[in-house]
């Protein structure tokens, strides 16, 4: 029993490590980009620190998002929760809101297109279209 738990822990730990590694890789890429843009070299320790902080912040974000969703008596995390999370930083909030609106618009347009297509198409073609729509969605 204890061994199993230990194994579980180890599994979790290794899982965490892999996640951290993935985050670190992504952060490294982004930092390289920024460094080349600003022409400011970034040391490896800096990149490592940034990735560590990012990882911990992700944990916090996840907990907060879950709290917010539960606060709104939902079981699914919504874009509203994300916006609430990002409210502190104005620019980030604006960015997220814009993206959200874009996506919403995009979805609406797609739906409108699909509807038109459905109307135009024959009934025989409709099932195929419906499938396509669903897959696209």
């Amino acid at each position, binding site marked *: 029993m204890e061994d199993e738990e230990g194994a579980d822990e180890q599994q979790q730990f290794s899982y965490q490590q892999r996640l951290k590694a993935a985050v670190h890789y992504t952060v490294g890429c982004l930092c390289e980009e920024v460094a080349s843009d600003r022409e400011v070299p970034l040391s490896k320790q800096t990149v490592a620190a940034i990735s560590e902080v990012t990882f911990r912040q992700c944990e916090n974000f996840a907990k907060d998002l879950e*709290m*917010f969703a539960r*606060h*709104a*008596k939902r079981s699914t995390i919504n874009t509203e*929760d994300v916006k*609430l999370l990002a*409210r502190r930083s104005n620019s980030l909030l604006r960015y997220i809101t814009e993206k959200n609106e874009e996506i919403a618009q995009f979805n609406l347009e797609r739906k409108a297109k699909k509807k038109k297509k459905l109307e135009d198409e024959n009934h025989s073609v409709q099932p195929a279209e419906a499938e396509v729509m669903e897959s696209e969605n």
Partner: protein
Amino acid sequence: MADSYSPDNEPTTRTLLRRVLDTEYPRTPRRPRSTPAGARKALLETPFSMRLRSQTKTAAKRRSHRGRSIDRLAHIQTSERLKEQTPRTLLENILLTAPESSMVMPESVVKPVPAPQVMQPSSPESSRGSLELQLPELEPPTILAPGLLAPGRRKQRLRLSVFQQGMDQGLPLSQEPHGNTDASFLTSSPNLTFATPFQPESVQRPGLARRPPTRRAVDVGAFLQDLQNTCVALAPSGDSLNTPAATLPVDTVLEDTQPFSQPLTGHSSSMHHSLPCSSVSAERVVSFRTRSSGPRLQNDSPRKPAQHLAGKAEEVAALAVGSPNNSSSISGEGGLEPLQDEVGEEVEEMMEESLCVSKVKEAAGTQGSARAEEPETHTEVTEAKGSWRAVEDKEPEGSSGDKDTSASSKLASSTPEFHQAGQLQFLEPAPPASTAVLSSEPLEPVSARLPPKARTAGPRQRRDPYKTGLSHYAKLFSFYAKMPMEKKALEMVEKCLDKYFQHLCADLEVFAAHAGRKTVTLEDLELLMRRQGLVTEKVSLHVLVERHLPLEYRQLLIPCAFSGNSVFPAQ
């Protein structure tokens, strides 16, 4: 005869008088007469001596002595000694009545001005005399031995001077105290026993001479005005909530006779704006805010939150938050007004609550800073635990700390706060004026001072609520810092607190909106605390409540089984 009382080490008035009495003994013609009344006198003396010796002992003793002395007094009054009108009689009477009053002395000296003012609103029907009467009733239990010595010294000089005056006046003096203030002897303050007969308020409390005497006079006048206003206010306001609210602001509004009138012309327009939006809520909010704010300084404060609330068209929230505030403040105010110490505390909390409310209304408020301080400066708001509980969960430590603070510190702090507020009034770009509210400024000495200045400027009043409230926190901060602090440092602390509260209330508002609500509830506060890291998986809210709050508030937050019928508090 108990003549050989060794005077106590304490140089109190009693001791002095006792000494005088002792020296007087051989000369009085009483001696022969004392034999028939010797028993009575002996009885009298014993309580005196006991009182003298055990002056600093428990109040219970004094009470018992007082009871006895009262009997003695009755005896004396009926006895023929009254007719003697010798200095000895006078002294004896003084000594008889002194214990009761001396016990009260400390309080009256400590809070001479605020006490009467505090008393005023609480006892609208009481007459002038009862003003003083009430003082001892409420205060004696609080301060007895500790304050006795220090004020005693002050009172000594006072007493002696008054006594000498009495001596000079001779007969009339001895007669008057007996006749006029017989009843008041029991409960009136020592000063009054002497002074009331022949010296009106100005000399009533020479010990208060260090404070502007005008305050005293104004208080009474204001009190009478408040009485009238109360009658006036009660009539028009039919709303149950508004009635008590109206009375309260009226009580404290020294110049303004109309509860929600527009005392300042400039502010009336703004008031109108706010009124249409949410007349009821604004009124309610204003009413309780007016109650809380002082006459001059916080005139605008109540208006401001009211206006903002109305402007934001979040009336529901205002109503929802305002009504509990009102109800609690109404209930609180009546009970708390007489207690000066609590006023400041309650007000602080109330201000915090109102702060939250106002913040909820204005997320990014341009005058957010002003508003933030507004509610806090509602030092008068005897907002009590009900509303506090709803909003203040996040600040259990702060508010409980506030509540626990002693009255004197509160008093002292609130008074300078108002001074500061007055100075800072000009700075703030007040939003559309807070109407009328010559509202209830703290029933403190400040109110007496303020009425003359109340009409000065609109922005002044708006500024006060913010800074007054935050300055209170700054004072707490400096107190706990145990080190002298620069003024600039304190100002920075105030600014930080201001921003902190702004953020806090913005968060609360957002949380409430996130849940599709317009009212900030306990859930929102708990979420906030969780984000702050105060509430974790290991430490729940209940744990924090139990750790930091006194029992009364704990009971509000955590339903516990009472011996009565209700297991859970009715909500």
